[in-house]
């Protein structure tokens, strides 16, 4: 039973891995299109981790880019000193841990706030982080850090993206994960049923920050140039857009939306002067026609199995 449940995910991941590897080996995916793939991978990590906080735990955060920047700068400072693979891995680990720690520090006082108030507090937190990086000497201010060592190839990208997906999926299928979801559903009822809601809000928040830190570190180690303005309010909004578009509370929705939006954005790059206008108009249109996002709060696997069982039932009825 358990084994069969994991099979579709494993197959999807394996097919994706082989397909991109083959396309790259045959030269169909060139450096430019690989950059698009890296962006998609990073956005998947960002969106699914924000979905854990906002979609699953119900805590509205507008500061995800702040955590990403902590991962990015921490990793950059480490790989500058130690431009080796172990240095890169240390950078990812340290960046993610630093982001998670800040997540706990910020989360403890602010997660008592509800809804929009929390959103504003997290927005403020991200702006403060950005201003700090803007003013620190070690981060080189507004000019940022450049000519950083590049490590991320398809293997590393796949490892971290798929790893994030599997870990988040595992977590949501566990007792602590369900406790997080119960906070979204009804905080007072959850608390009365023995769920320490503060603990799980902070857990989800810092776990989200952790993976955002991973994404930041990957960004640094592929695009080798970072500056504070990359991680501004608009970046946080971009991530939120992916989450809402895919469906709050749907990991596969976030993955699909991350791919889709990046493809649209890449395609629109051919029309630089109207790119953002069209992107914005599309965003409004999608929300007007599908306010719950592409998948609502269900997963692709659930949708497919529902379809299959419907087809099965119909086939049976026809037999009769």
């Amino acid at each position, binding site marked *: 039973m358990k084994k069969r449940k994991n099979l579709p995910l494993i197959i999807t991941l394996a097919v994706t891995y082989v397909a991109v590897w083959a396309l790259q080996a045959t030269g169909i995916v060139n450096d430019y299109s690989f950059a698009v793939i890296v962006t998609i991978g990073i956005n998947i990590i960002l969106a699914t981790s924000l979905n854990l906080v906002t979609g699953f735990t119900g805590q*509205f955060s507008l500061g995800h880019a702040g955590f990403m920047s902590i991962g990015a700068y921490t990793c950059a400072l480490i790989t500058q000193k130690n431009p080796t693979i172990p240095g890169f891995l240390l950078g990812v680990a340290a960046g993610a841990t630093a982001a998670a720690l800040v997540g706990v520090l910020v989360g403890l006082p602010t997660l*008592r706030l*509800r809804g*929009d108030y929390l959103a504003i507090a997290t927005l403020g937190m991200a702006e403060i982080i950005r201003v700090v990086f803007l003013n620190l000497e070690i981060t080189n201010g507004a000019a940022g850090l450049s000519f950083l060592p590049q490590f991320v190839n398809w293997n590393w990208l796949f490892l971290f993206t798929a790893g994030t997906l599997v870990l988040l999926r595992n977590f949501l299928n566990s007792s602590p994960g369900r406790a997080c979801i119960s906070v979204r559903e009804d905080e007072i009822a959850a608390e009365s049923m023995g769920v320490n809601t503060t603990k799980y809000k902070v857990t989800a928040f810092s776990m989200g920050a952790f993976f955002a830190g991973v994404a930041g570190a990957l960004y640094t180690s592929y695009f080798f140039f970072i500056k504070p303005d990359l991680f501004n309010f608009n970046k946080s909004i971009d991530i939120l857009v992916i989450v809402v578009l895919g469906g*709050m509370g749907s990991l596969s929705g976030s993955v699909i939306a991350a791919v889709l939006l990046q493809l649209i954005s890449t395609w629109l790059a051919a029309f630089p002067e109207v790119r953002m206008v069209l992107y*914005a108009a599309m965003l409004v249109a999608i*929300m007007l026609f599908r306010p*719950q996002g592409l998948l609502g709060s269900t997963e692709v696997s659930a949708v497919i199995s529902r379809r299959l069982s419907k087809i099965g039932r119909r086939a049976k009825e026809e037999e009769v």
Partner: protein
Amino acid sequence: MEVFLQQLVNGVSLGSIYALVALGYTMVYGIIKLINFAHCDIYMIGAYIGYYCMTYFGLSFFPSLLVAMTGCMVLGVLIEKIAYKPLRNAARISLLITAIGMSLFLEYGTMFLVSAKVRTYPAMTGFMAKTFHIGNVLVTMQQIVILATTIALMIALQYIVKYTRAGKAMRAVSLDKDAAQLMGIDVNTTISITFAIGSALAGAAGVLVGVYYNTINPLMGVTPGLKAFVAAVFGGIGLIPGAMVGGYFIGIVEVLVSGYGNSMYRDAVVFAILILILILKPAGLLGKNVGEKV
């Protein structure tokens, strides 16, 4: 002391602009619980309308101000009708994303139409160019006009909200939409009026900022918008007096931090104050905390 007074004068001017923009945020939030991200772009468009009135049509300050306010009023109502009204019963986050989309649309639509280049407001002449010295403190006529316009608009707003039918309807809808509807209040019209008033105030702020700082560009609304929103939250979101107090407070703090400390840190200080207020008094300076009924 003189330096301090000078900073205070500058802070009040900046604060007036924040307060005008904050009013729009707070009124819309009060009535449909939406952080209207497109609001800061209405302010930007107000600045552009004022700019074209003054340069192409050669209008003076006050007619330009009126045209900009009217234009923004229409724009605000249109945006509400097209993008927000269909989502009135949808999840609030979908509405928020729509507002973000609308904001991007206005920013990049403007950029497409008039290009991204920075425009300069025409230099003020005659009456508007006067300056005064009170001791060693310099006060420009522009600063006086900004403050006077802001105060006049705020008095008008207070009058509308407190004493007119539309204002009473606005307060009723923001307290309880369903009950207001049952009492025979046309909720849709009331929401439109709220957007109209808020947008007109933002339009006025846009022209004032153009006159005061001279340069405008399609992305000029983003940062002041964020800070005006902070001001609204600081004073207590949904509360009109809160937005005024918050606007002036944020404006003055920002100018003082740049004057005495490090101007690079001024945004951080603004947001740090915001977080502190939220933690200590989540409903804002003038707000009341309301618990959930079990």
